[in-house]
C-alpha cells in the first residue's frame, strides 16, 4: 500500500466519477443523463492524464532546455485521451439527436413519463 497523500489525486477523480454515475442512474431527465455521462467521461480523462505526469517534468515537446526539468511526461496517454475527447463529443451529439427524436415522438424527455405512455399504449 502506498502513502495516502501520494494517491489522493486518484481519490478526487473517483469522487467525481461517483457523482457522474449517480447523475446518470438517478435522474430521469434524458438531457441530464447526457450531462452526467460527460462528467463521468472527463473524470476518466483526468485519471489517465494524472498517470502520465512526472513531478518536475514538462510537456512532451522536445526542446534544448530539458536540463531545467527532469523528464518529459508520458505522451502515450495524451494521445489516447485526445482521440477519446473527440469521440466523446461525437457520441454526445448523437445522443442529443436521439433525445430530440424522442421529444418529437413522445413530447417529453422524462423517462418516467415515457414509460407511462408505453404502458397506456399496451393496454
Amino acid at each position: 500500500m502506498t502513502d495516502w497523500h501520494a494517491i489522493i489525486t486518484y481519490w478526487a477523480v473517483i469522487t467525481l466519477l461517483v457523482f457522474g454515475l449517480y447523475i446518470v442512474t438517478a435522474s430521469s431527465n434524458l438531457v441530464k443523463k447526457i450531462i452526467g455521462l460527460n462528467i463521468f467521461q472527463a473524470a476518466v480523462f483526468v485519471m489517465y492524464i494524472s498517470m502520465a505526469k512526472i513531478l518536475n517534468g514538462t510537456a512532451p515537446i522536445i526542446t534544448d532546455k530539458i536540463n531545467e526539468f527532469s523528464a518529459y511526461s508520458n505522451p502515450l496517454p495524451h494521445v489516447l485521451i485526445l482521440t477519446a475527447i473527440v469521440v466523446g463529443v461525437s457520441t454526445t451529439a448523437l445522443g442529443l439527436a436521439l433525445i430530440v427524436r424522442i421529444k418529437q415522438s413522445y413530447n417529453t424527455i422524462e423517462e418516467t413519463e415515457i414509460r407511462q405512455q408505453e404502458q397506456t399504449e399496451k393496454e
Partner: protein
Amino acid sequence: MKHHIILRIVSKILIPIIMLFALYVQFHGDFGPGGGFQAGVIFASALILHVLVFGLENTQKVIKSTTLQIFAALGVLIFAGVGVVTMLLGGEFLNYNYLAKSAVSGQHLGILIIELGVGITVASVILLIFYHFAGLKADD
C-alpha cells in the same frame, strides 16, 4: 440580433482572427500544441459564432449543408488516400517514409497532409451537426 450593434461589429472583427488562429493551430501542430482536431473545432466555432450573431440562413448562404457533407467525406478521403499513395509508392499502408526522397521529410509531409484531412473532417462534421441542431430551434 439586429439591434446588438456592438456584438455584430465585434464578431465581424473576431471571425477572421479566429479562422486565422485555426489555420495556425493546424499547420503549427508539429511544433507546438495543436493539430487537426483542435484546428477543426476552432474553425467550426468561428462559423458557429457567425450563426449565433447573423442567423442560420445567412451562414448557410456562405457554406451550404451539402458542401459540408462533401467536405466531411473529402477529409476521410485525404487521410485514406495518403495510405493508398504510400502503398502505390512501394511501402505499407500509411507508411510515410516513401512520400518524399528522404524518410524524415516524407514523415513530415505525411503528418501535415493527414492532419489537414483530420481538420477538414472535424470542422465540417461539427458544423453540420450544429446546423441541424440550430435548424430545430428555428422550426419550433
